């Protein structure tokens, strides 16, 4: 029987070295930064892919002031339940992930598209570039979409994704996460991020999560397990709220206070 395991590349850095590098860089950054650092060498793929010039401030105008509009015609009926598959149920811990999408002023973002994608329970994506030798689940694609309701709530039923290895450094593992894509009411509020699960011991080791150098900001990416959201003999419930940046429109829509 041939082994699926690949030889350990000797030239890659150890986790201990990488963790020390993260700690060193975080010590040099000021607290309170809400966003990841783009210039962040511990995430090796970022080295040639981050701009080096300061961002230019622009006053948003025209199309920048209006988010794209999505509706029921954009979404299939069952796309918010990733466990409903033609061949049967996927393997793994059944979960619900739900929360509110708010703008920077606390207003709910209504009727807007939320998209997610994730690995299966064994940490494998259905993507041809994912070479992790963990089993593909024939009943799990890991892709979901829904629209927020009038109070900004989204909700997905899924299975808990597994952590997975990657080649950033030797013996590197991503903490379990779900990729989230969000829109606000303005184009300028666009956000793609990742939601993590509480208590994961891999957080401190992960250069992607740690690129957000402020602990409180990192904590905003971690869902909470809430018993009230769990369903009797059916699934565990997780709550994760999302706050987008503020809008620039100077008027209030009818019904807003």
């Amino acid at each position, binding site marked *: 029987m041939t082994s699926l395991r690949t030889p350990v590349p000797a030239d890659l850095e150890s986790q201990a070295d990488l963790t020390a590098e993260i700690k060193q860089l975080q010590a040099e950054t000021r607290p309170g930064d809400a*966003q990841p650092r783009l210039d962040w060498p511990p995430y090796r793929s970022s080295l040639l*892919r981050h701009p080096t010039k300061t961002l230019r*401030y622009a006053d948003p105008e025209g199309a920048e002031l209006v988010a794209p*509009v999505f509706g029921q015609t*954009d979404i299939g009926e069952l796309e918010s339940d990733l466990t409903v598959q033609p061949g049967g149920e996927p393997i793994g811990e059944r979960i619900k992930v739900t929360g509110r999408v708010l703008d920077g002023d606390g207003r709910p973002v209504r009727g807007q598209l939320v998209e997610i994608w994730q690995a299966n329970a064994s940490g494998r994506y259905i993507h041809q*570039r994912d070479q992790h030798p963990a089993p593909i689940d024939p009943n799990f694609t890991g892709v979901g*979409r829904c629209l927020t309701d009038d109070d900004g709530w989204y909700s997905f039923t899924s299975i808990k994704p597994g952590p997975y290895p990657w080649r950033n450094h030797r013996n590197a593992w991503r903490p379990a996460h779900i990729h989230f894509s969000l829109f606000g009411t303005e184009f300028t509020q666009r956000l793609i991020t990742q939601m993590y699960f509480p208590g994961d011991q891999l957080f401190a080791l992960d250069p992607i999560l740690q690129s957000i150098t402020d602990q409180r900001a990192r904590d905003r990416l971690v869902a909470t397990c809430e018993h009230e959201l769990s369903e009797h003999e059916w699934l565990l419930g997780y709550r994760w709220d999302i*706050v987008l940046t503020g809008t620039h429109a100077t008027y209030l829509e009818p019904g807003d206070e």
Partner: protein
Amino acid sequence: MSELGVTPGQTIGPFFHYAMPMPDDRVLVPLDSPGSVRLHGHVYDGGGNVVPDAMLEIRQCDASGVVPRVEGSLRRDGSSFTGWGRSGTDSEGHYWFSTVEPGPTHPGAAPFFAVTVFARGLLDRLFTRIYLPADPEVLAADPLLATLDAELRRRMIAVRDDDGSLRFDLHLQGDQESVFLAYPRHVG
């Protein structure tokens, strides 16, 4: 009023190709339909390599300068113009859209596509604009372009190909690094 704790961004990662782009989301108007234009280009990293795992989204006015508020960008009905599209890059780092040229939002305004850029290796989204090649006086009067020197201004303006397409290459880093934008109320 104090800002709520804004949710930080994270990289789109390597595995979005199967999840995000839809068959027609880059086709804002049918290919080669009257008034259509192809907006396309390559995405490069700081070493001059193409970036095969980037994704661009565009938001724009219609030809009369109005921003559509119309659903149906993920599953097109073939006739509505939604003013939004999404294109991944292919193995050559190439993206493309079939769309219309945005009109000026008011007389004398320089039309542009608003753009968001995502990529594996890019820890948060970037914003930029792709301006239409237009009257130099119109471009020079644009509030953003007016703050840039000639070289940076040039980098924000699409090039007209011989076949009429609009070409715009995006450089995440390097000598030709594109101009990326922040808006007021973006924090951190």
